[in-house]
C-alpha cells in the first residue's frame, strides 16, 4: 500500500519537479517567469509530436526541450534585452502556450505512442518501501534525480552558477566583475524554460502517453508557487514537488476506494494545498528568512541613475 502510494507520488511529482527546477534557474538569474504553464504545454505537445513523428522517445524529449527553449527566448528577449515587464510577458507566454498548443495539437488528438517504460535498477529496486518508488521508474525520472543534483552543483560549485546567482542578487555587482550580464540572463531563462518543457513532455510521454488539450491543468502554476516554497533551492524543490505529488496520489487513491466525499472536492486538494503552501512560505518570507534573490523581477539597466 505505502509502496504503491509512494510510487504514484513520484510519478505525479516529476513533471512539477522539472517545471520547478526550470523556474528556479530563471528566478536565480533574477527573472520571474509566469509562462511556466504555457511552456509545459508547449513541451508536452512538442514531446508527443516529436515522438509520434520519429518514433523515438529521446527525440521527443529533445524536441520538448528545444520548443520550450525557443518559446522561452521570447520571454528572455522581452525581459532581458528590452527590459520589459516580466509579469506581463510571462502571462502572455502562458496564454500563447495554451492557444498555440490547442491549435497545432488538433492533429495529434487521439493518436497513441509507446510511452516511457519502467526500468528496474538491479538490487536497489529490491529495497523495501522505497525501492519500487525510486528505483523501478522510467528514464526521465532518473534524469530528474540527476537534474536536482546538477542544478544544485551548478549553482553552488561552479563559477558560472555563482555568476548567475549574483545576477539575481545584484546584477551591477556581476557587471563590474566583468560578467556578461545579458548573455547569462538570457541563457538562464532559455535553458530553464527548456527543462520546464521536459516537465511537460513527461505528461505526454510517461504519465499518459497521448496529447490532451490543456493537459498540464495548472501544474505550471503550482511550480511557480513551489519555487517560493523551495526557497529557490533544488533539493527543497524535490521535496515540494513530491509533497504535491503525494497529495495528488492520495486523492486518486481515495477516489478509487470509493469514498463518499465528492470527487470534485478531492481533485481540489492539490490546489488548496498550493494556496496553503504559498501562505505559509510567504509568512516565512516576511519573517526575514528570505532566500529570495534580491533583484528578482527588476530589470537591469547599466546606465540607470539611482
Amino acid at each position, binding site marked *: 500500500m505505502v509502496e504503491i502510494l509512494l510510487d504514484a507520488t513520484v510519478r505525479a511529482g516529476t513533471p512539477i519537479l522539472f517545471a520547478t527546477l526550470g523556474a528556479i534557474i530563471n528566478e536565480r538569474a533574477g527573472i520571474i517567469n509566469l509562462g511556466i504553464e504555457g511552456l509545459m504545454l508547449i513541451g508536452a505537445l512538442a514531446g508527443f509530436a516529436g515522438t509520434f513523428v520519429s518514433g523515438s522517445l529521446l527525440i521527443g524529449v529533445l524536441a520538448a526541450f528545444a520548443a520550450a527553449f525557443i518559446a522561452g527566448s521570447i520571454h528572455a528577449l522581452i525581459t532581458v534585452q528590452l527590459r520589459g515587464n516580466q509579469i506581463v510577458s510571462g502571462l502572455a507566454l502562458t496564454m500563447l502556450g495554451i492557444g498555440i498548443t490547442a491549435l497545432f495539437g488538433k492533429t495529434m488528438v487521439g493518436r497513441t505512442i509507446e510511452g516511457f517504460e519502467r526500468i528496474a535498477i538491479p538490487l536497489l529496486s529490491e529495497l523495501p518501501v522505497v525501492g519500487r518508488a525510486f528505483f523501478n521508474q522510467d528514464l526521465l525520472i532518473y534524469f530528474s534525480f540527476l537534474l536536482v543534483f546538477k542544478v544544485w552543483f551548478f549553482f553552488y560549485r561552479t*563559477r558560472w552558477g*555563482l555568476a548567475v546567482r549574483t545576477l539575481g542578487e545584484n546584477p*551591477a*555587482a556581476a*557587471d*563590474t566583475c*566583468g560578467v556578461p550580464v545579458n548573455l547569462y540572463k538570457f541563457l538562464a531563462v532559455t535553458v530553464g524554460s527548456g527543462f520546464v518543457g521536459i516537465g511537460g513532455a513527461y505528461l505526454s510521454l510517461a504519465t499518459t502517453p497521448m496529447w490532451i488539450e490543456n493537459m498540464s491543468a495548472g501544474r505550471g502554476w503550482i511550480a511557480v508557487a513551489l519555487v517560493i516554497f523551495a526557497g529557490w533551492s533544488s533539493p527543497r524543490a524535490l521535496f515540494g514537488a513530491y509533497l504535491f505529488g503525494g497529495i495528488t496520489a492520495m486523492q486518486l487513491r481515495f477516489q478509487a476506494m470509493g469514498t463518499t466525499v465528492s470527487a470534485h472536492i478531492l481533485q481540489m486538494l492539490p490546489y488548496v494545498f498550493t494556496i496553503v503552501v504559498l501562505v505559509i512560505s510567504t509568512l516565512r518570507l516576511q519573517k526575514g528568512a528570505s*532566500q529570495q534573490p*534580491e533583484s528578482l523581477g527588476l530589470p537591469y539597466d547599466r*546606465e540607470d541613475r539611482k
Partner: protein
Amino acid sequence: MPDLLQIEHIRKTFPGVIALDDVSFSVAEGEIHTLLGENGAGKSTLMNVLTGLYHPDRGTIRVNCQPVAFASPRDSLACGIGMVHQHFMLVPAHSVFENILLALDRVPNLFSRKKYQAKIQQLLDEFDLQLDLATPVWKLSIGAQQWIELIKLLMRDCRLLILDEPTAVLTPQESARLFKVLLKLKQRGKSIIFISHKMREVMEISDRVTILKKGHSIASLSRGNYDDKRLAALMIGEDMIPQWEKRAQAGDQIILDIRQLAVRNDRGLADLEDFNLQLRKGEILGIAGVAGNGQKALAEVLTGLKSASHGQILAGGQDLTSSNARHSYIAGIAHIPEDRKSIGIAPDMSVDDNLIMKNFKNGTFNRWIFQDRKAIRRNAAEKIEQFAIKAGPDGTPVRYLSGGNIQKVIIARELSERPAVLVALYPTRGLDIGSAEYVHKVIADGATEGMSTILISEDLDELLKLSDRIAVMFRGKLIGCVDPQNTSREEIGLMMSGERQGGAA
C-alpha cells in the same frame, strides 16, 4: 613618470542633464590623484565612464597612450582599471569568498575552492586584514565590506584603482589604515584615483589634485602648488554661502527621554539595544557613529516608522512607546530622512504637492471635498521664497530638482508646522557646500526658537560645529556622550570604533 591614463574632453549627458561637459586630466604611474568637487560636479559620472558603465558622448580615453573605448566594465578591467564604488558592488547574501571569487579573472568553471581560498588568504595576510572568507557579507561592518571591494581589485591585479569617497563610511582610525594601504600600493607602482570632498584627507594623501566643477575640470594642481583655502575657493567658486551663528545654550527641560530602547530589524537582530538618551529643549544633540550602527533604527523608532521591541520613549512624563498618544505626538516630530528621494518626497509629484504632504488634511488646503489649488499654490510660492528653493516652472516634478533643492523642499515641509523635535538623518549628505550651510543655518535657527534637534551625521566636522552634545553610537548601543567644546576628533573616532569613554558627560 609616464602617464598611465589620459582623459580628454569627455562629455556625458543624461536626458535633460549635462553631467560632464568638458573634462580632461591625466594620471601618472604610481600617483595618487585626487578628484575634488562638490556633489553634482560629476565625479561619480566620470568614474562610471572610466569603468565602462557609462558611454561618453564625446571625448577620448587613453591608457598607456593607446586610445580605448570601453563597451562594458569587462573592457576597462582588461585594461587594469578597477573601482571601489560608493555603493558597494557586493552581494550581501553571498559569502566573502564568493564575492571575491566572482571578481577574479581566468577562474575555471570547476574551480578548486582550497586553492583560491589560499590565494585570497595570502593577500589578506599581506595587508594584515582579518576577514573570515565564509561569512556572509551582510554580517560584516561597512568598513570590512570596503576591504572586500579593494581586495577584489587587488586580486585582479588592477593597475589603476579608483576609490569613490571611500572614507565616508569609515572612522578616522579606519581611514588612517586605508591611507597606509594606499601608500603601500603607490610604492608598488599602482595608480590611484581618490575621490573625496574632505579637505583634510585631500591635503594628506594627494600627489595631484584635479578640481571638477559643474561638469568641467577647472584645474589640475601638483602637491605644493595648493593649500586647502585655494582648493576650497576653486571648488566652490562664487557660490553664496549663507552666514549663521550658533545661539545660546540649551534649556533644562527634558523634551524626550529614551529609556532602554531596543529595536529589532527584519533579520531578527538588534538594531538598537539598551539605548538611553535624553533630549533637552532647544538642544542640538549630535549623534556620531559609522553608518549602519543603529542610527537609522533610532530615527525610525522616534518618528514612528518602526516600533520598539523593548523600552520606553517618554515625553513630559508620558509614555509614548506604543500608546495612541504616540500618533498625535509623532505629528509634532519633523523628520529629515536619510534617503531623500525614496522616503523624503514623492518624486513624480510637483513641488506644490510635496510641500503639503504633511498637512493636506488641514482645512487650509481643502474646499469641501476638493483641493483648494489656489491655497496650495500660494503656500508653495511662500515656501519657495522663504527657503530659496530653485524649483523650476510651476508643476515641475520634484525629481528634476538638484539634491540641495530637494532637501530644501523636505525641510520647508517638515518645519512648516513648527515641530518641537527635529530628527535629521544625514541631512547634508550629498549636498554642495552652499546647500549644506543652508541646512545648518535652518537647524541652528530652529534651536534658537526652541526646537530640539537630533542630528545624526557621519561628518564629524558638522557635528562638532553644530552640536551642544555629541552622543556616539556603536552596534546599536550608546557608547557615551561628550562635549564638543573639549573633545578631539580622535577621541570621538575611538568611541566610534567601540571604545568606551570613561567618565564623560
